[in-house]
């Protein structure tokens, strides 16, 4: 069922989708964390010989992130975190 090995465009597309979904989180801390973790995880697996396990994991994380971005936006507090306001 799983693809033999994900191609480079597929990996890049997953990376972009994850970053795009990260930007949609309404909570400052979660947003920064998901951006940072995505970049670090892809950097860590850059030279992996067989990226299919990491790719499958990434795809499932993308599904989780999409759902949770929606849930967080439904319950976003009106007052934003102090870090998001101007100093």
């Amino acid at each position: 069922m799983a693809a033999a090995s994900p191609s480079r465009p597929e990996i890049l597309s997953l990376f972009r989708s994850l970053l795009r979904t990260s930007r949609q989180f309404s909570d400052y801390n979660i947003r920064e964390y998901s951006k940072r973790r995505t970049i670090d995880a892809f950097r860590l697996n850059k030279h992996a010989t067989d990226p299919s396990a990491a790719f499958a994991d990434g795809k499932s994380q993308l599904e989780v992130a999409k759902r949770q971005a929606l849930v967080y936006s439904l319950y976003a507090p009106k007052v934003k975190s102090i870090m998001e306001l101007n100093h």
Partner: protein
Amino acid sequence: MAAKLITTALRRTALRRTASLKPINLRPFSTAAATIPDPYDDPSSLTVKGVKISGRPLYLDMQATSPVDPRVLDAMLPFYLSRYGNPHSRTHLYGWESDEAVEIARGQVAQLINASPKEIVFTSGATESNNISVKGTLHFYKEKKKHVITTQTEHKCVLDSCRHLQQEGFDVTYLPVKSDGLVDVGKLRDAIRPDTGLVSVMAVNNEIGVIQPMEEIGAVCKEFKIPFHTDAAQALGKIDVDVDKWNVSLMSLSGHKIYGPKGIGALYMRRRPRIRVEPQMNGGGQERGIRSGTVPTPLVVGMGAACELARKEMEYDEKRISMLQERMLNGIRAKLDGVVVNGSEERRYVGNLNLSFAYVEGESLLMGLKEVAVSSGSACTSASLEPSYVLRALGVDEDMAHTSIRFGIGRFTTEEEIDRAVELTVKQVEKLREMSPLYEMVKEGIDIKSIQWAQH
């Protein structure tokens, strides 16, 4: 394909509609006209307890509790929505799927501490697990064992359980700690008696963050064949916890310190050699009779997911949090003098930074730091005015104990938050020191301790 279109459309409308969604009404059934303005109504600022702040404070109190990780929430939600069965119902799908989820979560918790799933009992939190361990063990073995050894820096629930045991007639030895917060293993060895029934030492202290020498204490307990209990609520998922390396018989775990839900914890009970306890919650015999009561499936699933995440992310988190802690400490030390780190600097958990600022009053410092959520002392004891008993046990002077601030750094803390916290702390401390006559005297070179204060 159709499902994809529907979900994108739904997401677009939901995200568009949130701007016009009414805020979640906290008092939906009140019929009286709202005379008290709801503090969360005004979108530009927040006024709570007479203090007005323009945004939600940045959270640096990870030892009190931690935010729930979105991946944990994602695992929990189905069990609130459609899979709401009672795991002890044996006759239908709802019960079976709930039970399966509980057993998977049990395995996830066990894997993090290198135990077997059969040795994990779910409780309502680390406090309940501590109660079962301390009181339950001694009550079970009360014919032969009358003595408990613990330390002066334990969590309040352990100390209170020991006090309860003292009232029942047991003997308790409260071991002192060295000035860096660590237990002296030699003193522990000397305190052991033939009728010692339990040794209880917490792995990572919640106030000062020091990591006790668990392997040495475990070796001593193994030598004398005494059950070793540890409160690992702050240690789980943060440092390497291994029940065999530490030789623990009982371990208390907490869900909400590792980015899981509040209201759930676990108790590890060794099977070989078997440790027996008297249950504190009697009832239908759930959780092998140790803790009766319906096992809360969503919370248990959340704790299991949190443990699994902690196992995968521990190395990454530790490296990052260590970098953030150094950044914070260097940032503060570069601008301020008279900053003391409470507790050992080498043997500490990197996410806990407990600092004392000399010549500054603690309450006023905390009140000035209203844009940073930190605590002084622990969440359990900060209601009273006396300085924390942990700092007193370390031998810290009263005035330094009053000005201690505990910064808790976690998985979701950013560099910008650390920089902002450093900036705010430095500004506040400098402001207070400028007003302080004691600091003026110190700057002139007078030794505060040598002053003879005149009696009025």
